[in-house]
């Protein structure tokens, strides 16, 4: 049976995945212009500086947009239909995720609802997913 895709870290993304394994959402920011950014890479997309650092984000986010997918990807048959969401972190950057601890329905998933990060083990990797803040 097909299994869910497991991400393979690269040297520049390893601190992110190490953070996830430690239960922290670690992302990067520019030490010149100060802007946080995602996804991990060794250059600031705002100002082009290569002086960047890792920090631990609050894990708070809001629901920016989503779809509810009725044609499951390999390994997702049991969850279908399931939401594929994009959340906006409190620090500004956006990331794709899944939503847990909440029915994946249009009624339950209201844009801008507050969320917080939690982690789901997949193979050797801990994968950040989000759940309603009040849950």
């Amino acid at each position, binding site marked *: 049976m097909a299994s*869910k*895709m*497991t*991400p*393979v*870290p*690269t040297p520049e*993304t390893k601190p992110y995945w190490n953070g996830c394994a430690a239960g922290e959402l670690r992302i990067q920011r520019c030490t010149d212009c100060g802007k946080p950014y*995602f*996804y991990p890479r060794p250059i600031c997309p705002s100002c082009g500086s290569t002086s960047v650092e890792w920090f631990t984000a609050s894990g708070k986010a809001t629901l*920016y*947009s*989503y*779809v*509810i*997918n*009725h*044609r*499951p*990807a390999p*390994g*997702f048959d049991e*969850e279908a*239909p*399931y939401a*594929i*969401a*994009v959340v906006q972190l409190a620090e500004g950057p*956006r*990331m*794709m*995720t*899944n939503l847990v601890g909440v029915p994946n329905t*249009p009624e339950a998933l209201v*844009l*801008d609802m507050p969320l917080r990060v939690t982690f789901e083990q*997949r193979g050797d990797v801990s*994968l950040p997913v989000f759940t309603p803040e009040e849950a």
Partner: protein
Amino acid sequence: MSNPGVIIAGAAETNELGKLPGHSTLALHIEAAVNAVADAGLTMKDIDGIATVAAPGPVQVAHALGIYPDWVDGTGVGGTSFLLHVRHAIAAIRAGYAKTILITHGESGRSRVGAPGYRMDAASPVGQFEAPYGTLGPTTTFTIPALRYMKEYGLTHEQLAYVAVAQRQWAAKNPRAAFRDIISVEDVLDSRLVAYPFHLLECCLVTDGGGALVVTSAERAADFPKPAVHLVGTGESSETPMISQMLDFTESQMFRQAGQKAFAEAGITTADVDHLMIYDAFAHVPIYGLEALGFVGKGEGGPFIAEGNTEPGGRLPLNTNGGGLSYTHTGMYGMFAIQEGVRQIRGEAAAQVDNPEISVVLGNGGMFAACGVLVLGKQPR
């Protein structure tokens, strides 16, 4: 004149579109190339430049056709690639690198004969930061911005559905369109959910087919059997390799950026545009395109289509072949959007608009990833 004119001298699609299990990807390229070169009244020996996407790529296509070119372009940025090939061909012709350039598309999108496999590199950015969340192709990614747009601008499910309704009205006039039965908003909303808020009829087809173009200098315009289609303005841009990193889910920066370049070069405004093609892999994309090109203000694209402005009899004929939603969509639809623009300017379209002088073609690649815009003219500018 510092920028000598360049034209499309030949344009054609494969003999058939749809389900073609008897054609490999390469065979579709070859059939489209043969048809386009014949349409220009030329032979393969006249071609000295080649452009297409991998796979099979320009080397394979040129070799199969017996062409040993002076200029090769393999730009592959998704379904809009062919619009970028046209733009790059213009530069090559102006630079003297080539005189007669063939641009080909062939894709066994439905039958997958001799087609590349879908592979996802789990170590790539998209493999690490999107695919683990259960994405499965464009229906699960290209569609994600729509709910945000709906919340910000009040676009309704009915207005989104009407995009498919309007385009089906054009397809009904086109014998080559895959789907030609008139549909209602209710039909669209009653079709099964693929990825909420998108129903099946708000998603493009998946077909086999191909198309090709011959691009050359405007000074040769009188040498060809068909009326020249002048390339009077072009633009290109790119934005994001991952839908989650699109700058603003309610607008496409790259559509706007490429469109502004193309309109400025052509010296036109939206009021000059008689015919419009906007790549429609999904029903929301024409709305984003109309707004990015400045035909309507932000949030006005959905109502503009729902009020009938883009359907037969409307003031801005849009996606007159029926579009990716009803005509054909091999996976890289951009070639078919260009072909319809060419047919309209030549006056040979199935649903012909009344004597258009200017046709604009906006192509999308990937999931709001890359963009090309072409302004086609009956006359040079």
